[in-house]
């Protein structure tokens, strides 16, 4: 059984307990959907630069190949709503309308953030393979109103490595939820991205304060280098 750690990370070598076998570790790939990083998707429609949200794709694809070879659990998440929008809070819908890209409205990639639509699918570079878990979530956090915690505990997972978009919104919310639930978390600076470069940097910095208030920050190459076969 391969192990991970200690990984060169900020603010302490990750994990706190020295190293962890891969069968207690999961790689989370958060919301790598066309709506957040593809041409014509939700983020593109709002007028943001998708090169910022796409920046982490090559490193994430390389890390996925590495952890798949190790047999590590991989969990993908997708933000989206059912076609009838019964799980879409009124304020979330209102805000998306204000900004000119209403959730549920028709866009270049199908109905925005609706399950089953082309824009809601995960982009091919980091698409799930057979046997990997995909969690559909209605919010920013991947734990609220989903089976993620049950899936992780059923697999005996205690440690999480986080990739995905966007750093300050869905990745951060999910990392905060995971940290409160006792998971030891590592967020990867080169496998994340935000619609604003300053918010990406600030979100990573926040993790490292006060001894690692939400966990640690590292690069994917540090995780690969800290793999003990």
């Amino acid at each position, binding site marked *: 059984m391969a192990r991970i750690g200690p990984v060169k990370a900020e603010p302490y070598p990750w994990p706190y307990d020295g190293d962890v076998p891969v069968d207690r570790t999961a790689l989370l790939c958060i919301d790598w959907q066309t709506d957040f990083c593809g041409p014509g998707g939700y983020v593109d429609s709002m007028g943001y630069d998708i090169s910022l949200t796409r920046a982490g794709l090559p490193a994430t694809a390389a890390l996925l190949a590495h952890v798949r070879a190790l047999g590590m659990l991989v969990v993908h998440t997708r933000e989206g709503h059912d076609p009838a929008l019964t799980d879409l809070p009124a304020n979330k819908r209102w805000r998306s309308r204000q900004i000119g890209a209403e959730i549920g409205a028709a866009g270049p990639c199908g109905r925005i953030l609706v399950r089953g639509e082309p824009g809601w699918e995960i982009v091919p570079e980091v698409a799930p393979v057979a046997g990997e878990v995909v969690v559909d979530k209605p919010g*920013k956090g991947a734990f609220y109103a989903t089976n993620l915690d049950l899936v992780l505990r059923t697999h005996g997972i205690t440690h999480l490595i986080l990739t995905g978009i966007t750093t300050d919104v869905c990745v951060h919310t999910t990392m905060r939820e995971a940290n409160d639930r006792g998971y030891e978390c590592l967020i990867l600076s080169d496998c994340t991205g935000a619609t604003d470069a300053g918010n990406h940097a600030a979100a990573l910095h926040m993790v490292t*304060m006060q001894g690692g208030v939400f966990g640690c920050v590292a690069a994917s190459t540090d995780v690969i280098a800290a793999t003990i076969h």
Partner: protein
Amino acid sequence: MATVPARPAPFPFDPDTTALLVIDMQRDFLEPGGFGETLGNDVGQLRRVIAPTAALLAGCRAAGLRIIHTREGHLPDLSDCPPAKLLRGAPDLRIGDPGPNGRILVRGEYGHDIVDELAPLPGEPVVDKPGKGAFYATELAELLTGVRSLVVAGVTTEVCVHTTVREANDRGFECLVLADCVGSYFPDFQRVGLEMIAAQGGIFGWVATSTEFLAALPARHLEEIS
């Protein structure tokens, strides 16, 4: 309905379905000589929040708003403290260690309680939470039955306030964060924390000041309260 001028847009609310949430205004985080200061933090950055929050509490009480306080802390045997939280890093003081105001972040200790200036009144629920977010492993969601809007004060902006607002937003609550009633040990995080709330059309909620909120709050007639 009342409306508060706010970022990124005016915040409409009905006082009957609005609650004030005051997060973690505890002695260990705010008082000189407490846990926060022993970690090397400047508690002055947080103490500036006390006076406007006291005025906010007075105004909300007069208007008959629901008020809920939270405290971060653990059971004396630390059975609700995840190992990853307890053992992480190499701080001088760990959770449960004896500190200047009793055992650090342990329920029932002097330092764990809310500062005198903002002490809860009888009838105001106090939610004890083991994590940063006030929804996880607490009764907060049940206490908010019938509530649609949350007005948020407390510390620290980028940690417990942000985590709780993110949880609330995913649950469909409309959150108004009051910039002068939330505080961070770090001025940069105070600024960027507030910016993140209102970014992308208000992705987590709205931001205003307590003065703006209090000005919009209709005073309730005494007979209506009773």
